[in-house]
């Protein structure tokens, strides 16, 4: 018997003020997967996520959570769902800890269980130091973390995050990516963003929405398969191929475009180059398939509109 997917969208559409914002979207998400939902502003990402979270009802189509229709499932099912909207839903008059206890209770946890869950979420999101501070007095970064903590405090099976990285500094964004990867191991996560790098760093599947339609839905190709390398003393292609991690190398303007073997990493390549004494100047991931796909979809739609 085929197992029931955790989340299933079937022909989901939504009209807002006479405009079709989400148009016939279909996809399936299972536990243990992180889905990156990409799209330009106004592509319909937030509306799709709001429907999954139950804040909006779809105009047409069905959303199934664990096999049951979200439209007619009561509290019990929704407790399996954690949602961080675009603007974190914080009550500025509450203390961080108070707020998280409230969120835990709102999702059915009681007494001691709510306390334990709150402590776990505080630690997980790095909020231990500010647990007694008022939410309204926190910096944007901490507020965003409190919002994420509220979405995961009841350990839901599905976590829906709408642009969680907005307002975070680079260090916090990197911590957030680590957190999302961690969450993705036990839960299913949907992450909406317009940062391609976020998707590349923490998702194993990517869906691209454009003008309300799902234009792309595929597993993410392994990152950093192709690297752009610049060295001081340029060797010839044959010398590149002699390096253990390299599958293929082509001269590419000022540097080299190097494709790695499947089991090799960028670290292996840099070690090999340094060992040869070629003088490594630059090593970065090339604009990958994801970016090309994204730009192709966005620009094709623009060309049609023109």
């Amino acid at each position, binding site marked *: 018997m085929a197992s029931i997917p955790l989340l299933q969208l079937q022909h989901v559409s939504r009209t*807002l003020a006479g405009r079709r914002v989400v148009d016939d979207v279909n996809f399936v998400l299972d536990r243990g997967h992180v889905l990156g939902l990409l799209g330009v502003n106004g592509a319909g990402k937030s509306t799709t996520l*709001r429907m999954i*979270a*139950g*804040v*909006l*009802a779809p105009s047409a189509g069905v959303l199934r959570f664990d096999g049951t229709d979200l439209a007619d*499932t*009561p*509290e019990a*099912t*929704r*407790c399996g*769902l954690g*949602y961080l*909207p*675009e*603007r*974190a*839903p*914080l*009550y500025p*008059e*509450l203390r961080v800890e*108070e707020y998280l206890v*409230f*969120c835990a*209770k*709102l*999702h059915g946890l009681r007494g001691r269980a709510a306390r334990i869950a709150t402590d776990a979420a505080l630690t997980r999101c790095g909020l231990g130091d500010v647990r007694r501070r008022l939410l309204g007095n926190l910096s944007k970064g901490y507020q965003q973390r409190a919002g994420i903590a*509220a979405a995961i405090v009841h350990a839901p099976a599905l976590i829906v995050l709408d642009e969680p990285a907005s307002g975070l500094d680079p260090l916090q964004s990197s911590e957030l990516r680590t957190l999302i990867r961690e969450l993705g191991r036990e839960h299913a996560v949907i992450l909406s963003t317009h940062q391609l790098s976020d998707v590349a760093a923490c998702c194993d599947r990517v869906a691209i929405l454009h003008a309300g339609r799902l234009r792309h839905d595929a597993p993410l190709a392994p990152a950093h398969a192709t690297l752009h390398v610049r060295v001081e003393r340029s060797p010839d292609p044959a010398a590149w191929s002699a390096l253990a991690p390299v599958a293929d190398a082509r001269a590419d303007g000022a540097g080299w475009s190097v494709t790695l073997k499947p089991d090799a990493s960028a670290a292996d390549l840099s070690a090999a180059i340094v060992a040869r004494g070629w003088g490594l100047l630059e090593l970065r991931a090339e604009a990958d398939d994801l970016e090309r796909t994204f730009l192709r979809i966005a620009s094709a739609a623009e060309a049609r509109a023109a």
Partner: protein
Amino acid sequence: MSLLLARLEWKRQFAQPLAWVLLAVLLALLAYFFLLSLDAYLRLMPKLAGTPSAPGVTDLIALPLLRACASVLLLVAPLIGMRTIASERQAGTFALLAASGMGDGAIVRGKWLGVVALLAVFIALALALPLSLEVGTALDLGRLAAAALGLLLFAAALAAIAVAASAYTEQPIVAAVVALASNLILWMADAGARYEGMESGFINYLALPTHLEPFLHGLVASVDVIYFLLLIGVALTLAARRLGVARRHA
């Protein structure tokens, strides 16, 4: 779930200055009113002493005060209730409640209970003023209890109207104005009819004072209790329906 939300509402109301300022200012006004009527009563007392079945302290001090308290509630309930749902939608925190799946009815009931609790505190404090006279004289406690129950039902109905108004808009101030207008219409619905001498028509049944007055006279009638419960039921149902409509058509 509703109780959880009501507790949050209560906590948030007291974390903000509005509730404190309102309670302080209104109690000061009621206390002034109380002292004036006490003074008037003391001047009148020698004359009353000679009159058989003269009105007592309860009639001359406590009930006018509670009647004033009812008029004040007409203004306070919209101010306390205006933000309940409107400001949550404005600030985006409503998504947290909507996504929790607690249901529109439970959200509305929770918000309403929070407002009722706060108005109950106000009524209790207002009642404490005449009750303090119990030290020196005998009050008609049965009548005061009936009046307190009536005021509480009255406040609960006004709270339901305020929460419903709050569900229909994202602007708290608009909610306050709509709730205040509804309160005043219900308060004065039969003013014209009474002027013409009509005392027991349908229009009289609709008006709030028709059902509050018997309580103040110590009369707890089921028709009045049912009126307030109906008003609460209709307002909360409208509010919950509005939230459902917003989910589907916003």
